[in-house]
């Protein structure tokens, strides 16, 4: 066991997979050389694996996705980094039309077994173009997986599973968590299932679903509520698309009171899909309307500190929503 941050766990996962498989390579904007990425996620990789396996790409995201897909067709488990999840938008056509459909349209002759990493989320004073949650853009495209780790353990194990997967995986990393959470994780090789939601904490009064930074708020609030006699079941979605419907429905049925927490704006968010799954399958176990706590319907997260705070769901919001649901 060794204590690592979320960021160090991701770095370690890439390192170990590159040692294990010569076909794994890493590229993207500023990921190579001594810089090792704008957040330092790919630090030390170029030094160990050379500039041919770890290299900088031009500032063209469509090209990054296209190159990754091509490398995938050639059998490489390539890792492409989008510097921010906001910058993935120019690559949408490649990802939805080419990457996701490769296996289907070639009747299984070719696949794109690649990982596209993208740091998402707000709360770091990133302003409009460095704070967005763009995962919802891709949710709903069969052929594609979208996953996000919300613990240090998962950061390493989930990325390893993504790299080894024969499917294309969009790997969303919450940039606020990079250095905010640290934990002891095993030294041995391990993976985390790409398609399973996780019951992070068992409880009997209300069930709260979340992921990313919001999950940290949920866990803190549930500890507080435990002392007040309110027992909270906490579920980490892990897989944002496709959803682990079985686990989601089961956890919702358990308490009949469901709260969904996301920092994304409400309509069209991942949580709307979760809500729909629960409404469709668990109606007669529901004891309260499904509640979604989300950001405001506003174009993007502002830069000014007070406005960013106003935009983001915070610790108190989460606690209040949980208490309200428990009392309902």
């Amino acid at each position: 066991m060794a204590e690592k941050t979320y960021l160090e766990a991701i770095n370690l996962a890439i390192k170990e997979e590159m040692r294990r498989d010569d076909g794994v390579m890493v590229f993207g904007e500023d990921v190579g050389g001594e810089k090792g990425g704008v957040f330092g996620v790919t630090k030390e990789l170029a030094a160990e694996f050379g500039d041919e396996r770890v290299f900088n790409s031009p500032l063209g995201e469509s090209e990054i996705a296209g190159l990754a897909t091509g490398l995938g067709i050639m059998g490489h488990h390539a890792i492409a980094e989008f510097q921010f999840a906001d910058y993935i938008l120019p690559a949408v056509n490649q990802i939805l039309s080419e990457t996701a459909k490769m296996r289907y349209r070639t009747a299984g002759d070719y696949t794109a077994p690649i990982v596209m990493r993208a740091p998402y989320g707000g709360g770091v004073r990133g302003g409009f173009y460095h704070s967005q949650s763009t995962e919802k853009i891709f949710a709903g495209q069969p052929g594609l997986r979208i996953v996000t780790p919300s613990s240090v353990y998962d950061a390493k194990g989930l990325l390893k599973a993504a790299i080894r997967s024969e499917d294309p995986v969009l790997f969303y990393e919450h940039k606020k968590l990079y250095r905010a959470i640290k934990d002891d994780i095993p030294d041995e090789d391990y993976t985390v299932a790409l398609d399973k939601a996780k019951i992070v904490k068992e409880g009997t009064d209300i069930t709260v679903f979340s992921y990313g930074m919001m999950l940290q708020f949920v866990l803190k609030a549930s500890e507080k509520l435990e002392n007040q006699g309110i027992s909270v079941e906490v579920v980490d979605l892990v897989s944002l698309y496709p959803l682990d419907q079985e686990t989601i429905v089961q956890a919702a049925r358990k308490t009949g009171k469901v709260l969904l927490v996301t920092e994304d704006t409400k309509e069209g968010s991942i949580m709307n899909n979760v809500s729909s799954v629960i409404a469709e399958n668990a109606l007669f176990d529901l004891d309260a309307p499904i509640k979604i706590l989300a950001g405001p319907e506003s174009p993007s997260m502002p830069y000014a500190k007070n406005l960013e705070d106003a935009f983001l769901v915070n610790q108190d919001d989460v606690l209040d929503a949980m208490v309200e649901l428990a009392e309902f």
Partner: protein
Amino acid sequence: MSEIVIKMPPLGESVTEATIASWMVEPGTNVKKYDPLLEAMSDKVTTEIPAVDDGIVSRLLVEEGEVVDIGTDIMILDTISDQTDGILLSETKVEKAVPQNSNSLRYSPAVMRIAGEKGIDLNSVAGTGKGGRITRKDLLNYQPDMAAPVKKTVVTETVSKPAPVAPTASTTKSAPVQKGEGTPVSSLRKVIAKNMLKSVTEIPQAWTMIEVDVTNLVNARNKVKDDFKKQNGYSLSYFPYFVKAVSQALINHPKMNSSWQNDTVITNKEINTSIAVATEDALFVPVIKNTNNLSVSGIASEINRLATDVRDKKLKNEDMIGGTFTVNNTGSFGSIESKGIINAPQAAILQVESIRKEVKVMPDNSIAIRNMVNLCLTIDHRLLDGLVAGRFLNEVKANLENIDETTNIY
């Protein structure tokens, strides 16, 4: 004047916690806006936190050395004006008005289903939810005899089949398992635990021990101890003699006074001796600076000052840093042999065990009763080997054996 709460301000992107390295003010200090209040240390930087307004320090809420989350209340300031910067201050929370709807007659799908399955008359159930709403839990926990007395309970077959007093599955509680009592760990203890773990996991530690005849040292100290106490007000123990002998030996063995840091061996120019001082619930390792320039009496005075500060909880940050070698007085607990854990990033730690009388064969084959002591040394085997450690220990031994009644302690 009004009281405002100063919080630990954000120290940069993705920094979530910081250590209070040192307070630069105390209760009663008059501060001007932008005066430094404290030094905060994150894993990235050490930085001074300025006052947000003029005022008088009312209370410090966090002690030096504690690690706090960003946004934690750390100090209360009595302000003179009411003009303050927003972000560092606590905000008063405005209570949301909650409309009180009566929910007592609205049933959720779950409640309708369970009532149907169990044949429960919802009029007989007292709701515990908001506005008197009947919740799913109310029905799962429902037993016929809990019904409101004014209404007649409709007992159908489905509920009467099981023994009437048998609780339903969801209310069954097994007897609690007897467990040991848990005590939350203090933040100081956490720091100690972290350092200990870091030391044993990162450093390959080797261990050796020698025995020294300190009969002459014992006699020398006994001769001067009463006068010393009279002059200085505190006792002269054996420990300063050992610290002195060690620091003398370190001059000739700079490798023992070095440090392994990121594949580089740093040889320290100063000889600063860390000494372990235990309190009831924690372990401190304050530092005697430039020990090699001090006499036995000078070392005794420093030890007395540091130990007193630890006991009075007044130990200053500057007295905690810069140690290059640790000498640990395990003998004071009666120990005769112990294995120290290196105080990283130092290269070694020496344990001075208790002095005991033993029957010894002397060089001329006579038998004598002598005062013996064990010195136990733990070394960082990455940079030190048995040879250097052995030579060092033998020099410490020689230094100790050279002390006699003619040795001047001043």
